[in-house]
C-alpha cells in the first residue's frame, strides 16, 4: 500500500487531472466493450465469453487498415464493420445452435473460439507484440489542464466513446429497431409471433456488440500494444463492469466502467500490487449489496 503517493496526488489538481484522464480513457474503452456484452446478454440471454476476442480482432484489424490506408477515420470505421461481420457470422453459424441450452455449453462454444481466434491472430499477424503508433493528427504536444497532462488523443477517445454511447442509447431507446430489441429481450416469443424475424434480430444484436468491441479495439490500438492474449484481461474486466452495472443495462455499464476506470487509475497509485484486487473487492461489495448489479433487474 502506498497511501502517501495517493494522498499527495489527491491533493494536487495536476495529478488529479492526469490520473482522472487516464481513468476516463480506461473507463470509456471498457464501456464500449461492456455495452456490447451487456446488450448481447440482455437480449439473447447469452454470456458471450468470446467478447474479449472481438476487441482483440478490432485492434488487429485497425492495425492492418491503418497500415494500408493511413487514415485513422477509415481505420475506426473499417475495424468496427469487420468485427461486426465476425460477430454476425459467429452468431448465425455457432451461437444460434446453443440457444436455450446449458450456459456451460454456450461458454464452451465461446471458449473454443477464444482459443481459435488467439491462434488465428498469431498465424496471421505473428505472436510478437505489435504497435500501431499514434496517428499523425494526434502527434501533438499534450494539453495542460490545471497543470495535469492531457494527451489530445485521450480527449478524442473519451469524446468519441461518449458519442458512440449516446448513439447507442438513442438507438435502443428512441428508434423502432431499439424498441423491437427491447421487446425481444423482454418476451422473445411474442416478438416472433408478431412476425419479426428473430434470427435477423439476434444476428443484428451480435453484430452490434461486435461493432462496439471493434470500435474499442481500434480506439485502443494507438495506445496499447497488440498481442494475441490481449482479449483475456479485457474480457475479465468487461465482465466485471457488466455484472456490477447490471446485466442488460447499458447505463449500468457506463457507470460501472467509469468507476472501474477511476479505481484503476487512482488505485494503481495507492495500491500498486493490489490494483486488480481493488476491482474484485469492489465487485464483491456491490454484489453483496445489490446481487443483480447497480441497475440490474431480477432474472426471471
Amino acid at each position, binding site marked *: 500500500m502506498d497511501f502517501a503517493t495517493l494522498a499527495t496526488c489527491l491533493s494536487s489538481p495536476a495529478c488529479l487531472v492526469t490520473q482522472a484522464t487516464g481513468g476516463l480513457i480506461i473507463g470509456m474503452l471498457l464501456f464500449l466493450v461492456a455495452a456490447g456484452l451487456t446488450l448481447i446478454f440482455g437480449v439473447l440471454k447469452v454470456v458471450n465469453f468470446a467478447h474479449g476476442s472481438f476487441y482483440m480482432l478490432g485492434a488487429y484489424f485497425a492495425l492492418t487498415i491503418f497500415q494500408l490506408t493511413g487514415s485513422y477515420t477509415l481505420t475506426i470505421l473499417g475495424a468496427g464493420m469487420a468485427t461486426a461481420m465476425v460477430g454476425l457470422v459467429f452468431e448465425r453459424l455457432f451461437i444460434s445452435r446453443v440457444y436455450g441450452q446449458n450456459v456451460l455449453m454456450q461458454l*464452451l462454444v465461446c471458449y473454443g473460439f477464444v482459443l481459435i481466434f488467439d491462434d488465428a491472430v498469431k*498465424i496471421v499477424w505473428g505472436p510478437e507484440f505489435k504497435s500501431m503508433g499514434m496517428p499523425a493528427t494526434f502527434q501533438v504536444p499534450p494539453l495542460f489542464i490545471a497543470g495535469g497532462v492531457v494527451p489530445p488523443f485521450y480527449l478524442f477517445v473519451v469524446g468519441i466513446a461518449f458519442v458512440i454511447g449516446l448513439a447507442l442509447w438513442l438507438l435502443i431507446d428512441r428508434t423502432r429497431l431499439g424498441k423491437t430489441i427491447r421487446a425481444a429481450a423482454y418476451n422473445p416469443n411474442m416478438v416472433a409471433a408478431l412476425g419479426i424475424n428473430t434470427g435477423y434480430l439476434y444476428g443484428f444484436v451480435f453484430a452490434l456488440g461486435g461493432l462496439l468491441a471493434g470500435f474499442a479495439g481500434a480506439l485502443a490500438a494507438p495506445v496499447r500494444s497488440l498481442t494475441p492474449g490481449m482479449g483475456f484481461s479485457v474480457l475479465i474486466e468487461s465482465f466485471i463492469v457488466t455484472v456490477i452495472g447490471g446485466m442488460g443495462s447499458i447505463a449500468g455499464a457506463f457507470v460501472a466502467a467509469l468507476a472501474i476506470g477511476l479505481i484503476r487509475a487512482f488505485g494503481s497509485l495507492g495500491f500498486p500490487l493490489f490494483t486488480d*484486487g481493488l476491482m474484485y473487492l469492489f465487485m464483491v461489495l456491490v454484489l453483496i449489496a445489490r446481487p443483480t448489479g447497480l441497475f440490474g433487474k431480477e432474472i426471471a
Partner: protein
Amino acid sequence: MTRRSLAFDLLVGAAALAILALMPIVWPSKALVDFVIRGSAFALFATSLNFLVGYGGMVSFGHGMFFGLGAYSFALLMQRTGMPIPAAFALTLLMCAALGLIVGAICVRLKEIYFAFLTLAFQMLLYSLIILWVPLTGGDQGLRGGIPRPPFLGVNLANQMHLYLMSCALLVVGLILMHHLVQSPFGYTLRMIRDNATRANFLGIAVFRVRLTAFVLAGVFAGAGGVIMSLFVSGAYPEFAYWTISGEGIFIIMLGGWNSFLGPVVGTVILLVLNDFVTRFTEYYGLTLGIIILLFALGLRRGLLDVVLDAWRRQVTLAGVGAKPSGVSNAPL
C-alpha cells in the same frame, strides 16, 4: 450386494487402487507417474466441482479458490510449522471448509449467473491477496523453498513412488467418499433442489442450508486436490488460484460428462492427454484445442462418458435384457 452399496464402491476402489499401484511396475515411466499424480489432483478438483454443478445445479466459476487455498495452506503449514503431514493435511481441509462457509454463505443465495460471477470475484480476490502478500506467499513468483516431507507411518513423500501411491490413494478415497455423499439422502435432496428449488422449498426442505453444505463439502475435496498439486510441484504458484483453474474444471466436466459420477475423471484424462499430445504435435495448441472443443459442444453436445453410458444403456434396453429393476433406476442421476 447391490450396485448401490458402499461395499461395492469399496471393492471397486480397491481394485482401481491395485491397478494403479501395479501400472508403474508394468510400465515404468516417469511421465506416467507424473501424469497420474497431476491427474489425481485435477480429478479430485473436477469431481468436487461436478458435485456442485452436475448434482447441485450450482455453476461456480470460482471453485479454483479452494484448489489454490489448499495448495498454499498446506505448503505454508509445512514450511512454517513443524507439524506432521497428516496434521497439516487435516488443518488445510479445515481451512478450505471455513472459506467455503464464509464465501458460500454470501454467494449461495444468489441465482445462476450471479452466483457464478460472485464466486469468481471471490476467487480473484484471493488471487490478488496472494500476489499482494509477498512476505507470506512469495507474490507472483510463488512459494519457493520446497516442502519439508517428514516421513509418517512409514510413508516418505520425498520418494516419488510413495507420492504416487499416496496420490492414487487420496484420489480413490476421495472419489468413494464423494460418491457416498452423492448417493446419500443428502445427495438426492440436492438433486431435487437442482431440478426444482421452489418446489423443494414447498416440501419442507431447507434449500439454503443444503446448498451451503454442498458448497463447503465440494470445497474440502477441491482443497485436497490442491494439496496433491503442491506436493507435486514442491510449493505453490499463484496460477493455482487463477480463474483458469476454474475454467479447466468446467472444461473437464464438459469433456467427460456431467451426468455420470466418473465423467470428470474421464474428462481429466482427456484434458491432460490433450494438453500433452497436442503440444507435442503442433505449435498451434489453441487452434487444435478450440476445434476439439467445438466438436464436443456442437457435435456431441455431451461429455464423453455420458455418450458412452447412454449408448450402452440403449443397447441394454434394446436387447431386452434388464427391465429397469424395481429399485431406484439405473440413471446415475
